[in-house]
């Protein structure tokens, strides 16, 4: 457990002093040994970024793209003077020009503006669904692994059943019933992400459960809640971070495919998938930039999150490599 040694670099480690087993139960004496950190050691969460800058050029590029996307999403209001649903019927299908850098669409809306605001929706849905899903995956995975036995068996069969559906089909079904909205798609994608990744968390938690430090925690009288929160959770955390970062690109891509089919984020909110849109295909023959720019933005975002996620995975959790 790399992270556990890192995390406990400054923490106190308790060692029970051995007593002969035949002696009447004396109150167990605890000796506190302070394990001091080596000088110049950075905490692991800083270390990761420094190592990435040095050894993972592609990961750094990915990180920069993600950073750019974040900035676009945050500053969309001040980066452009148009509104994302501001129509202008006199300026329909204008090719790239000084006023409209990436042209305008069938309603005369500025494409660049919509791309920038699209980053906002993508990130909103992406981060929302992934945080929700990670929480669910963590809770479900740790619970299932820690409890074990029949509960674990039942839960895992339910997960099996869910995983039998090809992802897109079941998501499309649910969303067509719920109706398209930003909240619905975030919830549904989060649910799917959580159930799917609870498997990975469960696997890691299962192996952690068997470690002797869990046993000693139990021997010291820690309850289930304390053991799972203070001993299992911190060791599962790197895995969750990796699952979340690599999952972001998938979630963003899925949101785009659903919006593409008209089942995701409803108009007038601009999303890259919705801008590519199956329904708007006819307009693109007249204005190919309507297809080119959202596709480019989406590819760049997926590339950025993929590379960042891969690099973080290599640095944080070598066990998941190739997974």
């Amino acid at each position, binding site marked *: 457990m790399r992270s556990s040694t890192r995390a406990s670099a400054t923490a106190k480690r308790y060692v029970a002093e051995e007593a002969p087993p035949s002696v009447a139960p004396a109150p167990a004496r605890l000796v506190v040994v302070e394990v001091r950190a080596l000088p110049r050691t950075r905490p692991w969460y800083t270390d990761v970024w420094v190592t990435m800058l040095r050894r993972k050029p592609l990961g750094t590029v990915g990180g920069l793209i993600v950073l750019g996307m974040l900035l676009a999403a945050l500053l969309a209001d001040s980066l452009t003077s148009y509104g994302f649903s501001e129509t202008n019927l006199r300026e329909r299908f204008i090719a790239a020009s000084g006023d409209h850098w990436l042209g305008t669409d069938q309603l005369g809306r500025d494409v660049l503006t919509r791309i920038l605001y699209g980053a906002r929706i993508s990130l909103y849905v992406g981060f929302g669904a992934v945080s929700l899903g990670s929480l669910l995956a963590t809770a479900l995975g740790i619970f299932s692994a820690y409890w074990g036995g029949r509960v674990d068996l039942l839960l895992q069969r339910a997960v099996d059943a869910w995983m039998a559906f090809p992802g897109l089909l079941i998501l499309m079904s649910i969303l067509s019933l719920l109706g398209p909205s930003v909240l619905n798609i975030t919830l549904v994608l989060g649910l799917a992400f959580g159930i799917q990744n609870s498997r990975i968390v469960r696997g890691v938690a299962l192996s952690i459960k068997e470690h002797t430090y869990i046993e000693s925690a139990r021997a010291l009288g820690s309850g289930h809640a304390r053991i799972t929160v203070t001993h299992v959770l911190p060791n599962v955390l790197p895995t969750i971070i990796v699952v979340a970062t690599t999952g972001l690109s998938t979630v963003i891509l899925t949101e785009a495919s659903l919006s593409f089919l008209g089942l995701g984020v409803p108009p007038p909110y601009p999303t890259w998938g919705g801008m590519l849109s199956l329904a708007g295909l006819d307009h693109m023959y007249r204005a190919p930039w309507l*297809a080119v720019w959202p596709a480019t933005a989406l*590819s760049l975002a997926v590339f950025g999150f993929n590379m960042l996620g891969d690099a973080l995975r290599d640095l944080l959790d070598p066990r998941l490599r*190739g997974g």
Partner: protein
Amino acid sequence: MKQYVLRRVALAVPTLVLVSVIVFSMMRLMPGDVVIRMVEGHAYAPTIDALRKELGLDRPAYLQYVEWVGGIVLRGDFGESYWTRQPILDEFVGRFPVTLELATLTILVSVVIGIAVGIVSAVRQDTVADYVGRVLAILALSVPYFGLAVLVVVLPSIYFRWTPVWTYVPFTTDPLANLKIMIVPALVFGVTRAGPIMRIMRSALLEVLRQDYIRTAWSKGLTERAIVLRHALKNAMVPVVSLIGLQMPLYIGGSVIIEAIFRLPGVGLFFFEALTRLDYPVVQSVNLIVATMVVALNLLIDLSYAFLDPRIRYR
């Protein structure tokens, strides 16, 4: 082995039962009422209650579930569409060859490209060819297939006056014309799926090429071609095959979008059209059929591992 097979098949049954319960309750519990739309928009019946009764929606949900599953198990009857009143299974079976052909061609394209580029990349590690291959794989991973499909449909028609063929011809009527139609969507979908295959092929082959028996093969004086293709490739294929198996649901899910863009009358389009019309029985049954196929496929893959590696049987 026989016992192992029986146990694995028995384990698949509760999964399928759960799948059917999930699909059914989802369709019943969620808002959105097709009956109102059918009566008010299309005058399928004089009143809403009459249509409800006709479709059997007035009875308790558990009865509807038992009837649905009972029909499937006893009579192989998957119900009929609300709108067309056609049996769902007939429609599914009629359209399945299109989707199967698309999936087969897609897998073929992605496997051929992925494995070829993967081999070159591994054998010529850290050369220009390797870098080009890896960059291509990253690109393939990043470009969404529906984005690429839209660009392939739109751009050539503007700049080269070329469009995909829009009228579908079945393979049995005219194989050549059919392949002409299918090859473009299969290429688009296959190319974007080749990325992961290429990456895993490369890393698996690199690992195998460092093993002792490969060094022995070199020292016997075998040619590079024989070593890579005869000795190393077979062992490096195991993770590649399991990746393709794992990705099957992606091929099925993606075919919905590909079929919708290229207007191929397959299962995916059937599903998508049913979805937009809130045709619950179709959505429900197609989900169940496809999930059953995925479960069966996973079972087959698991059994093939057990067949290849006796240790698995006794676990």
